[in-house]
């Protein structure tokens, strides 16, 4: 519980840091985009364009003045100025285009400047047109007037007209120098007087007088107009608007710069935060990684230890069971050996004495026969006793009795020999023995189990022994194996089996002695065939089998004697066990 809580809190805190880092990274990308766009060269270009426009604006006024004062003899400079101004304005507009959509003030200033440019263009064109006419009249006037006055002076009748024109001449020259309204009215009065004169002069005068008259009028009309145009032009100067425009732009740029500086600061902060969070993550991760590594190692160790312990436990259990079995077998061996030893002596002298008794009884009976021959009619007492003991039956039965006793003692002797042979306790561990003998001894011990029972007729033992060379082995252990295997074979028959048979064959094959013990019993189910040698595996009801019989057999044959043991079984048909022991164990 505690572990899962800790685990959860670690995962969730790391998740939060990862989410925060992701958010910070997004913010970082945004800020990066916000801080990189400002191009300082472009800014200087724009500033330079503003300054250029101001200069061009001044140049326009300057050049217009020079034109008015006849410093310039043509308008090419004015045209060039306007073109320069226009192209500078277009360039400025292009450079400012990214900011115009967002900055209303800049947009307004640009529109104002464009409107002012149009206004100024119109004023300029008016000035150029008027100035051309005025200059032409001013240029023409002195020569035209001189020509007219010369002509007039030749004609005495026109002296009054001549005087008036001379006055006009003087006044106009004055007027050209000083645009005084008083002079204007003077000239207008003079012109009115000329008009008022009776047109007595001939047509010869009409045209030159008209020309001078019209040019004088033109000068009078255009001189103030050109001055006014010039004033309007100067007033319409785009200088103020350009200055305001430039200030608006500089404000805009300063604002942008400040914004970008702020963004840059945030960029720095976010970067720092990211670094902190990544450090935290790295630190956290390193701890977690180390922990995981240790855990893994620990887990592996635990698993190894568990496996080892399990194996050890199993071995312990097996060896304990084997020890118990061995103790059991050893006790059985000792018991049987003791029994054999204890019985051996009495049975020996019983057996010997029975034989002697038989001799003695023969002797006695022959003596009795001799008595009957020589004394056919004994005393009555004897005849009565003979009748009582039924001497004829006694004579007959006694010898039979003794023969039977001899047989019995022989059998006991045989059993005792088998017991001794089976346990072999009296012999050294390894010994050269005839395995056929061992088989026979074991069979003898199992004899009682071959007898017919309620459900099963007697089990037939078919012996197919070949002559075997003596082999070096531990006869007690080997006999124990025979005992286990034959016991299993005897138990292999299901109740109701009609002809239970166990076939025991012995022989040699190459370097091995081969013993085959087969039965025609139930066989071993296929699914357990592989397990029959496992310790504690038994198909018998609980408590009846130890599950160690075949295990011990396997260990004895394979491990202790370097032999082989294998089982072939067909369920329902029977089981065959083959044991192979090397002829030369060493």
């Amino acid at each position: 519980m505690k572990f899962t809580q800790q685990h959860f809190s670690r995962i969730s805190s790391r998740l939060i840091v990862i989410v925060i880092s992701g958010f910070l990274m997004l913010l970082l990308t945004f800020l990066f985009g916000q801080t990189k766009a400002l191009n300082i060269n472009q800014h200087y270009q724009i500033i330079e364009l503003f300054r250029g426009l101001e200069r061009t604006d001044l140049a326009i006024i300057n050049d217009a003045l020079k034109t008015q004062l006849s410093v310039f003899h043509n308008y090419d400079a004015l045209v060039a100025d306007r073109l320069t101004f226009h192209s500078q304005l277009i360039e400025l507009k292009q450079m400012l285009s990214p900011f115009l959509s967002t900055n209303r003030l800049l947009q307004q200033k640009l529109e104002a400047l464009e409107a002012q440019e149009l206004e100024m263009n119109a004023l300029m064109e008016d000035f150029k047109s008027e100035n051309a006419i005025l200059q032409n009249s001013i240029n023409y006037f002195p020569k035209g007037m001189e020509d007219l006055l010369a002509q007039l002076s030749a004609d005495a009748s026109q002296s009054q007209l001549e005087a008036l024109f001379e006055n006009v001449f003087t006044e106009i020259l004055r007027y050209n120098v000083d645009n005084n309204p008083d002079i204007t009215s003077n000239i207008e009065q003079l012109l009115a007087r000329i008009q008022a004169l009776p047109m007595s002069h001939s047509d010869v005068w009409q045209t030159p007088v008209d020309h001078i008259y019209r040019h004088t009028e033109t000068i009078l009309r255009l001189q103030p107009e050109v001055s006014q145009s010039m004033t309007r032009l100067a007033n319409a100067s785009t200088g103020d608007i350009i200055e305001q425009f430039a200030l608006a732009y500089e404000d805009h740029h300063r604002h942008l710069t400040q914004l970008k500086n702020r963004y840059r600061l945030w960029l720095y902060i976010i970067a720092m935060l990211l670094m902190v969070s990544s450090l935290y993550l790295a630190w956290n991760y390193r701890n977690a990684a180390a922990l995981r590594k240790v855990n893994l190692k620990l887990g592996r160790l635990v698993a190894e230890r568990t496996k080892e312990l399990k194996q050890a436990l199993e071995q312990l259990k097996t060896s304990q069971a084997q020890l118990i079995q061995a103790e059991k077998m050893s006790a059985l061996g000792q018991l049987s050996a003791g029994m054999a030893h204890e019985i051996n002596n009495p049975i020996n002298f019983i057996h010997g004495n029975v034989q002697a008794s038989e001799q003695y009884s023969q002797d006695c009976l022959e003596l009795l026969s001799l008595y009957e021959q020589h004394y056919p009619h004994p005393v009555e007492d004897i005849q009565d006793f003979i009748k009582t003991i039924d001497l004829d039956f006694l004579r007959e039965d006694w010898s039979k009795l003794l023969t039977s006793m001899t047989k019995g003692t022989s059998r006991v002797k045989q059993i005792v020999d088998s017991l001794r042979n089976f346990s072999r306790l009296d012999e050294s561990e390894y010994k050269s023995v005839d395995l056929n003998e061992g088989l026979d001894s074991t069979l003898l011990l199992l004899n009682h189990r071959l007898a017919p029972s309620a459900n099963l007729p007697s089990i037939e033992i078919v012996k197919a022994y070949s002559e075997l060379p003596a082999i070096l082995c531990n006869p007690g252990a080997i006999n124990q194996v025979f005992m286990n295997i034959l016991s299993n074979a005897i138990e292999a028959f299901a109740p109701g089996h009609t002809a239970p048979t166990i076939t025991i064959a012995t022989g040699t094959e190459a370097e091995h002695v081969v013993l085959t013990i087969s039965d025609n019993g139930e066989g071993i189910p296929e699914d357990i065939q592989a397990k029959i040698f496992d310790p504690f595996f038994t198909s018998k009801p609980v408590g009846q089998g130890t599950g160690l019989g075949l295990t011990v057999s396997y260990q004895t044959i394979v491990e202790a004697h370097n032999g082989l043991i294998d089982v072939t079984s067909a369920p329902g048909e029977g089981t065959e066990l083959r044991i192979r022991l090397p002829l030369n164990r060493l």
Partner: protein
Amino acid sequence: MLKARRRVRAAVVLFSCVVVLLGLGLSITWAHRTTGSVRLQRFTQSLPVSRPAASGLSASDAMGREPIVPLSARLALEPSLDPRKVALGNRLFHETQLSGNNQISCASCHKQDSGGADERPLSLGFEGQLSVLNAPTVWNSSLNFRQFWDGRVATLEEQVDEPILNPREMNTSWEAIVSELNQNDDYVRTFRQLYPTGIQPASIRDAIATYERTLVTPNARFDHYLRGDKTAITDEEKAGYQRFKDYGCVACHHGANVGGNMFQRLGVMEDFFLARGKVQTADLGRMNISGRPRDRYVFKVPSLRNVALTAPYLHDGSVETLEEVISIMGQYQLGREIPPDDVTLLVKFLQTLTGELTGTSL
């Protein structure tokens, strides 16, 4: 337990870092809002400013002793002009597909053998319709301060739209032109080589205007004279130039293009239209554009370069000879009567203004 405590401590450290840095950011942001930077202003005020020249014309030419400025080959051979664009513009200038009936090209009214103009008083446009004004010469048009008699557009590029879209003249649309040119693989390939956008109104305008900028006629005999070759023109022609100045023609016809740099009313000294009669809308001139009464009868002063080749004269093409137009100018513009001898001299002078086109004498 110990580990959990350490994690809590790390979280607290992380959190306080966040708080401190955020606080720092906010405070500096606040501080920046209240103080402005004046350094930039000072810096920008100290920047040097250059005054770029936007055209071939310059103030130094205006300050010369003579009101007319020689036209050199330098102007004709602007190195910035891409010869491939010039060639394309030349082809488009002669392309009848730029008209609604595929019969009229720019060159139909701006003829090489008529001084870059039309020998007719009014040009024949779409299906024989007459234009309202006399076709001005395309030659040296790049030196004009504005285009058309009424100066309605400022650039050669803008000029292209007018005759093409005018129903009396070429009577077509950009859609039609673009689709027709797109059917010509050669045009498609050439445009793609020269313009990233391919065949578009803007690229067509640019090509034509680029070509027109090469139609400058420098090295007239009078140019040689102005550049110091005193034998380039005859004494009579020199006398004609003197009359040109004395009579005041030069008041409006001056500069590199001998005109083409200002507007002037036709009929300054006397009412020209009263004498001519039948005033049409087109005769109102610049007033049609500006709407100002004072711009009535105001037209762009035409260039006098190659004027001997561009008859007939005036905005309505009503005058057939130079002699006549000189007299009209004297009477209505200058308030002078010019004697026939002087007219002859003036004509002789005007003939010295005929220059070379792409190196060939005209």
